[in-house]
């Protein structure tokens, strides 16, 4: 049995909730003498002792109600957040892909955004050049590729975002609600692409509310409730458990 490609051990994450989002210098200075002003807020545990392992070539679903900590776990796996305690080990290259695409810049054209986004994933200029035409072709944006992103519809932006990620060839794809990308035709195309990527041995971690998709596509799944793993196991069982819980 190969080692798990993603291994979360006892991962907990606390956020400090501030009633006033602005953290002024005054509060810091006063906090030195009046402890009750220090950090001015309550600690909120978004994740508590989450342990899970994803095996290579597996499709793993993460489901749960809103505010259960799914996106926090996603960001910790992607390396965007550091856990407050516990450890995360990733044995391979990982590409996070969020529903809203990468951070496109509105004033830049689609083509310029390909370069910026791919560089954000650590690509060098020659590497980006070598995938540029494949990205444009997959996105089906045609001559719109040289138009500023601010003139794109949201569907067009999502298409470009997915097309860039599709060329990354990582070991693990982290997907956060990206399955509803664009129109029916493009959705089908994305699903076919992901299916192909699965066939050639890539690992998938999918955060989604689409339970049918998890049931049909994922091997295993975890149910998060209030920052804890409430169930983990075969995707069908976990989804069934979640549906019973939700009184469906």
């Amino acid at each position, binding site marked *: 049995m190969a080692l798990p490609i993603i291994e979360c051990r006892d991962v907990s994450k606390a956020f400090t909730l501030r009633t006033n989002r602005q953290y002024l210098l005054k509060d*810091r200075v006063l906090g030195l003498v009046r402890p009750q002003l220090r950090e001015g807020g309550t600690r909120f545990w978004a994740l508590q002792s989450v342990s899970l392992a994803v095996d290579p070539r597996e499709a793993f679903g993460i489901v749960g109600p809103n505010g259960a900590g799914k996106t926090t776990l996603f960001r910790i796996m992607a390396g*965007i*957040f550091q856990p407050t305690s516990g450890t995360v080990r990733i044995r391979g290259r990982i590409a996070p892909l969020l529903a809203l695409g990468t951070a496109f*810049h509105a004033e830049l054209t689609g083509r310029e955004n390909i370069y*910026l986004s791919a*560089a954000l994933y650590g690509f060098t*200029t020659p590497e*980006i050049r070598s995938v540029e035409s494949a990205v444009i072709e997959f996105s089906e944006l045609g001559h719109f590729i040289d138009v500023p992103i601010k003139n794109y519809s949201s569907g067009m932006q999502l298409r470009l975002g997915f097309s860039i990620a599709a060329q*990354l060839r*990582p070991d693990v794809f982290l997907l956060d609600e990206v399955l509803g990308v664009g129109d029916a035709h493009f959705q089908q195309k994305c699903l076919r692409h992901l299916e192909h990527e699965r066939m050639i041995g890539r690992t998938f971690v999918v955060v989604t509310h689409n339970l049918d998709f998890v049931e049909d596509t994922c091997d295993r799944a975890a149910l998060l409730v209030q920052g804890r793993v409430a169930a983990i196991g075969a995707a069908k069982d976990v989804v069934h458990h979640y549906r019973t819980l939700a009184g469906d």
Partner: protein
Amino acid sequence: MGGPRGLDVSDRPLPRLFAYRALVKYLVLKDIKVRSRGTYLGVAWTLMNPLLTIVMYYVVFQYIFVVNIPHFLAFFLVGFLMWVFFSRSVNAAATCILDNEAMIKKSAFPLETLPIAAVLHHFFHHAVALAVALPLMLIFWGAALSLNLVWVTLVLGAFACFTLAVALWLSTLGVFFRDARDILDVGLPILMWATPIFYAPEMAPAILRPILAANPLSSFIGAVRAPLLDGRWPSKMHLGLIALWTAGTLVSGAWLFAHHSSRFAEEV
């Protein structure tokens, strides 16, 4: 194996930063393009801006305020252009993490690239401004062409490193103290007048001299003026102070940034 490598980068900070050099390049290009997009003159403004500024100060100091410092226009422009580079870089750095919130929350990349790109963007404008001003200084305004000009390049290089160091400090502080921007609004004009840009340090009364000497910007500006205007080496004191300031702020700034950047994504 062919195909793109991407993603396949080291965990150690410096090799990781180097692996993301293309990102720095496209962030700088983004700043330059976004600034000129939608304008009629486009990138030509990069050249027009320093040119018009220099013409304006030429008229002011040649015909209105006549100052009793030899080669005053060249003397002033050296300090002024360095100040513009420093203050614009520092202002941009103070908000560079907050301005790129969307990027930071959606992908994992070395965040050092953001202040580095902010400083490089303004260094580009500074280099263009110098390319306009240097020939004028050498031909008309009494600057001396000599091998000592190598010092100008070296000191400006150190100045860029020092500015980056201050940028690392301020970009970190800007995340945790939102007041940083207001403090800069008030603090930068004070710092400008505490820097010998419009005057020579010798003109200040003895009581204020220690303040000027403690200001790192006066050492940098003095060490560029000496070789450029008088054709001599920068003073040993200036060079020593420059080495200390650059090394000290760069080491502390890099440490500060590295130890807090893992929390930026949740603080912005």
